[in-house]
């Protein structure tokens, strides 16, 4: 009803966008009603209201800032992108016109190519390839980082840990593009590794590391190595050393200590590291663009092309939303698998 009031001419195609703009405000209203109800029914004499705690000026300022962020920088753009993905591709003049109806064609196009009506194997393959490779890179980085994180958190002396930390922080701030560039210098046809291999007589012609996707794998792992390291280290660091001592005194072998004491305790760190690495790997642009060969397929790069080469924003939005859905699914699986709450995983 409300939407009809907003758009009395029955232009439902426009109102889908308006509805999405209204949605967060409806949620806020619902929570406000709930809060009022709770304040009225629960009598707590020590309780002070928001205004009593912050004063009028600051109270309003805080709310305005947070509303600006959560509404205009986070929720509304996301929702708007989702709505955009349910619209056809139109020239700017025809947007908001009668041809601007809701449609599923952008999502269908991932499965059935709109050009030749055949199965869209390229994009489907790229989608699953991206997810599988990102998961594999996540697992790889977990395996690479776990021993060092454990050593720094539990076994190393204070000086050692400080030095190692410094060694970790410095490369962390070298940006993604330059790190991809450095890997490319190593793996290129004229790069150091090929020089070494040919110098040692192992191969006659340079191996095409970039064309066979080795470069992309290495780049993805390399770029996200420290994203895995810090949450792991933080989680293991707070484990009481006495627990490990006790397990050792009771005769547990080292692998049992890790399996039954350290890893269960470090679960939030593992979940948080895995979540971040997966998300960054799946959403990565630099590694596939700069370290892939001409035949490298990466879903994010396809999305990128829809925006910058095909100028098909609705289809790009639909693909972006599918990527987001895949990331959310992965996060949910990780949280469920490790029985960790979201608040524990991201701190």
């Amino acid at each position, binding site marked *: 009803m409300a939407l009809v009031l907003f758009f009395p001419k029955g232009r439902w195609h426009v109102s889908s*966008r308006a509805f999405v703009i209204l949605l967060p405000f409806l949620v806020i209203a619902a*929570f406000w009603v*709930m809060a009022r109800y709770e304040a009225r029914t629960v009598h707590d004499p020590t309780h002070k209201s*928001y205004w009593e705690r*912050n*004063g009028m000026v*600051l109270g309003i*300022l*805080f*709310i305005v800032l*947070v509303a*600006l*962020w*959560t509404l205009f*920088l*986070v929720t*509304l*753009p*996301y929702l*708007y*992108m989702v709505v*955009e993905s349910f619209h056809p591709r139109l020239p700017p003049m025809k947007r908001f016109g009668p041809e601007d109806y809701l449609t599923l064609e952008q999502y269908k196009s991932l499965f059935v190519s709109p050009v030749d009506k055949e199965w869209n194997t390229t994009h489907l393959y790229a989608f699953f390839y991206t997810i599988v490779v990102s998961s594999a890179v996540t697992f790889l980085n977990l395996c*690479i980082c776990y*021993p*060092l994180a454990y*050593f720094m958190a539990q076994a190393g002396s204070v000086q050692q840990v*400080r030095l190692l930390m*410094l*060694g*970790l*922080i*410095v490369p962390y*701030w*070298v*940006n993604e*593009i330059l*790190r*991809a560039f*450095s890997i*490319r*210098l*190593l793996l290129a046809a*004229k790069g*150091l590794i090929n020089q070494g291999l040919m110098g040692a007589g192992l191969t006659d012609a340079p191996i095409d590391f970039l064309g066979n996707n080795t470069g992309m794998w290495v780049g993805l792992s*390399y770029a996200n190595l420290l994203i895995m390291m810090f949450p792991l280290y933080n989680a293991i660091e707070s484990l009481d050393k006495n627990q490990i001592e006790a397990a050792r005194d009771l005769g547990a072998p*080292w692998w049992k200590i890790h399996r039954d004491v350290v890893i269960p305790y470090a679960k939030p760190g593992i979940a948080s590291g895995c979540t971040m690495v997966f998300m*960054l790997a799946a*959403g990565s*642009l*630099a590694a596939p*663009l700069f370290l892939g060969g001409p035949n490298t397929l990466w879903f994010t790069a396809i*999305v*990128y092309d829809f925006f910058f080469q095909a100028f098909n924003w609705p289809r790009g*939005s639909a693909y*972006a939303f599918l*990527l987001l859905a895949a990331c959310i699914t992965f*996060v949910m699986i990780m949280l469920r698998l490790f029985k960790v709450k979201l*608040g524990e995983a*991201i*701190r």
Partner: protein
Amino acid sequence: MSSGFALRVMLGFYVCLFFMYLFGPLVVMGITAFNTPSYPQTIPFEGFTLDWFVKLYNHRQMREGLWNSIIIGIGVVALSVPIGLAASIIMNQIYHRARGLFYLVTVSPLLTPGVIIGISTVIFWKDAFGLTDFTKAVFYKGIILSILGQSSFVAAYCLLIIMARLTRFDRAQEEAALDLGATYPQVFLHVLLPFLRPALLSAAVIAFLSSFENYNTTTFAILADKTLVTVLAGEVRQGTTPALSALAVIIIGLSLLGAVVYEVLKRREERIASEMKERARLAERGETAPELFRPAAATA
């Protein structure tokens, strides 16, 4: 004993391997910045040169990009640190039922690929600013969209950093100041902000750096403009030149410097904090703490 020794050797080997993986590519790249051939090569080292730094300095687009990057970085700090502060204060006070949703909404940008943040920012603001010709002409610009897009997730970093300190704040201080007749803004300025100062500073630094480094969001949000990182990406895509290695050397040098300065500042802060605690402890015991402690502090 011998198995312990073997384990230690293996561990040392592993740590070496790890840091070789971490630093190896950077070192190789660093060497190419000083080598003469125009294809960035490490071996053979044909001659020492600083030409690539000069080339880098004369790269007009990169200088323009750097300028834009700095403006965007300042904008992001100015927007996201206050937002993070306000959000952490509200998060601390909010009802438990709404808290879950609030938390989910505020950390969701951290779980969203940067590409998607960039895309959604452009799509939304293109229509929002496009409502009138005036707003479109004034606000629909790469720099402004980049600030908006980056702030959406940088504010979440700030929230988490400030939150971590805010949870240790003793509300009694605030209550006491209020009871003594201070106004709310006075309490905020003279009690809460000084307490949060270290967290605010590190939030600002992290915000600037993550804005400066960002590629995935910016490449969409910057529209037709350029930042240092997008220029860099274009260069890497086109080909390879040792001038890029030179830039990397500068960045590594700066972050090394930054890390050292940070370490020194942190140590000083820790020392001051422990001195304060010690002083408070002595004062509580009724000993004449300040007089006893000051000479020791001066010599330390």
